[in-house]
């Protein structure tokens, strides 16, 4: 089943064409086997058999975004604004500044949709990375000169498509799973990871904040992340 999913995943960008191709293939096979003309039923069967998870809704919306489709943008905003705003608010702890950052993030998505490329990783992690980077920039950089630099579209690093855990769960179920796994971590591991992720602190800054040895902080962070990884892999 994962192999089939991986195969159909490749055609996500052009779901219409893909569906049509399957439809013609099925009707052709039917025609030659039964020596009958393909019926409308075959066409409908080919379309309805396509399960909703085969084509990522985000990929469809993103391809429409390239055509400057306003309703596609609205749907993407409705799907992800709560996650993005929650993340930015958790980092900045200030509602109106957070809304400013979220506005920047979504406007960049609208204006530079072509910049998002599936080969650079799945969409939600990409969007969250962009939001976190911008929020941390706000947190760290106070000078106007450095703020202006942020207006330029940024080049984000590649994020791996992790097939097993990416597709095993939908967004909602994965969010619940991640929260449960992090909540189950040793409180010190959890605290160290949160300081790094939401406050953008480095190993030595965390060690100073927690008044703990550097080596201890390093292993808390690494072991905590590895446990989260194992937990997500176990869900496949």
């Amino acid at each position, binding site marked *: 089943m994962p192999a089939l999913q991986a195969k159909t995943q490749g055609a996500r960008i052009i779901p219409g064409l893909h569906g049509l191709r399957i439809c013609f293939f099925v009707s052709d096979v039917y025609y030659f086997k039964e020596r009958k003309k393909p019926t409308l039923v075959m066409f409908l069967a080919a379309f309805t058999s396509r399960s909703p998870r085969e084509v990522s809704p985000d990929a469809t919306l993103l391809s429409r975004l390239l055509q*400057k489709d*306003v309703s596609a*943008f609205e749907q993407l*905003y409705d799907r992800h*604004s*709560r*996650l993005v*705003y*929650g*993340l930015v*608010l*958790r*980092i900045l702890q200030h*509602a109106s500044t*957070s*809304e400013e950052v*979220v*506005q920047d993030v*979504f*406007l960049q998505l*609208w*204006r530079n949709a072509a910049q998002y490329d599936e080969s650079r*990783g799945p969409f*939600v*992690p990409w969007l*969250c*990375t962009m*939001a976190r980077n911008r929020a*941390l920039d706000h947190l760290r950089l106070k000078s106007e000169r450095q703020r202006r630099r942020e207006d330029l579209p940024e080049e984000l*690093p*590649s*994020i*791996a*498509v*992790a097939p097993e855990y*990416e597709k095993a769960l939908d967004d909602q179920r*994965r*969010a619940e799973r*991640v*929260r449960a796994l*992090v909540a189950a971590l040793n409180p010190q591991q959890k605290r160290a*990871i*949160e300081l*790094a*992720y*939401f406050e*953008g*602190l*480095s*190993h*030595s800054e*965390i060690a100073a904040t927690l008044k703990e040895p550097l080596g201890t902080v*390093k292993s808390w*962070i*690494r072991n905590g*992340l*590895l446990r*989260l*990884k194992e937990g*997500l892999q176990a869900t496949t």
Partner: protein
Amino acid sequence: MNNCDQFRELLEAYALGALDPEERAALEAHLATGCHDCARSVEEARWLVCQLAYTAPEATPSDMLKGRLMQTVRAEAQSHAEAKPQALPAKRYVPVWMWGLAAAMIVFMIVVTRNVRHLQDETREAEHLNAELMEGNHKLEKELAETKREAMIMMDPKSVKIMMPANGKQGAQLEAKWNAQLGVLVMGDKIPMPAPHHVLQLWLIPKDPKAKPMPSMMTWPDADGKFILLVSNPPDSMGNTKALAITEEPEGGSPGPTTTPIYVGGVS
């Protein structure tokens, strides 16, 4: 690989952005060497770090934020749509003049090809005409040269006159003039035509009784019975020749006389 093991411990912290500057610089230097395994592990670690976003409590932004965003987006979409139609007709317009140009070129090529062929035909005709003219000219020159030689033989006092009466026929007779340098000229008036497909051929009868008559030129009298035969290079000299004779021979001549000579004249 030992080298990689040393960096492996840093990959998660690197993806999290928690490495201190020295360690980050060392890992980035290693990644810059093109280590495929580590690069892939970093991408996986980034994905893992991204999952931490879910641990932030979800929050709903104000409706005003959405309102502001949608207003901006609609305005930009409209200006994008207005910019588009200008591009479309231009796109459609290009093929039209391209087709026109292509058609014009095809017509031009046809016209040129036809003209070239016409010119070639004319050139060929002109060449043909020229060749004919040249041939005619050559013939005239040759005739002129012959006439000149005939006149010279006639006028030259050194030419020897040889009377060639017809054998048994009254009236008609030929007269030959032999010039050692210019050749033999045989002339006559009211000479009867030979039988169809026959010619009158000149023979040189040698003084040596054992030698056979030597064949020479042949011709016909014209419609008025005028007969002129010029031999520029006779096969033998005057000294060795006893007589000149003319016989009627089949068209194309014969190596030896097949009929009794009609005209005979002794060389004195």
